[in-house]
């Protein structure tokens, strides 16, 4: 079936540095999402995005986080500056208007040291 691709699959970064996580959503999907999962725990909603704008963000979506999708390219999550507690797996998802089901990528494993 159609896939969401996430690049990179793993990233190790020094605390305080900037990181950009990239997501290539399913081609005809228009809604995009980021979720955060700490090892072995539940998936936590960060933000959703539609028509070039953030629709809703959770309390976990700190001021250091930003998302964008410039001109139909990658949907990105940028963290600047990173903190130790940002270490987690970040999942991107996309969905089609009118559909309830989401397609998730395989995640980017971020380790902040």
């Amino acid at each position: 079936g159609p896939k969401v691709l996430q690049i990179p699959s793993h990233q190790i970064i020094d605390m305080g540095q900037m990181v950009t996580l990239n997501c290539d959503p399913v081609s005809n999907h228009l809604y995009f999402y980021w979720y955060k999962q700490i090892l072995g725990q539940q998936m936590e909603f960060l933000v959703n995005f539609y028509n070039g704008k953030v629709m809703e963000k959770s309390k976990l979506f700190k001021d250091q986080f930003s998302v964008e999708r410039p001109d139909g390219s990658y949907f990105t999550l940028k963290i600047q500056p990173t903190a130790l507690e940002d270490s987690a797996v970040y999942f991107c998802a996309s969905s089609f208007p009118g559909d309830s089901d989401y397609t998730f990528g395989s995640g980017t494993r971020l380790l902040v040291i």
Partner: protein
Amino acid sequence: SQWGEENLQALSIQEGEDVTMNCSYKTYTTVVQWYRQKSGKGPALIILIRSNEREKRSGRLRATLDTSSQSSSLSITGTLATDTAVYFCATDAGNTRKLIFGLGTTLQVQP
């Protein structure tokens, strides 16, 4: 929290057995989705049941939904070792374009 305490479980069974997982939720939803997450992968939708349905089947999977008690179950018949995964239920908090995931049930199927 959106979720009841019983959603977090770890189950270990033998291949061929049947298993049922439960989740309860606290706020209104138009749909309950069940996702399977295998180690090192993202969650994948396996079955979806809408608020006007009481039961849904797909192959070896059966989902039920009781909106009065705000609970859902997922049953797998004739489990296989490849069913080993974490299973999450997710609700949409009233169709807000924001899936909210439960704590998950870790299922280990021994061959």
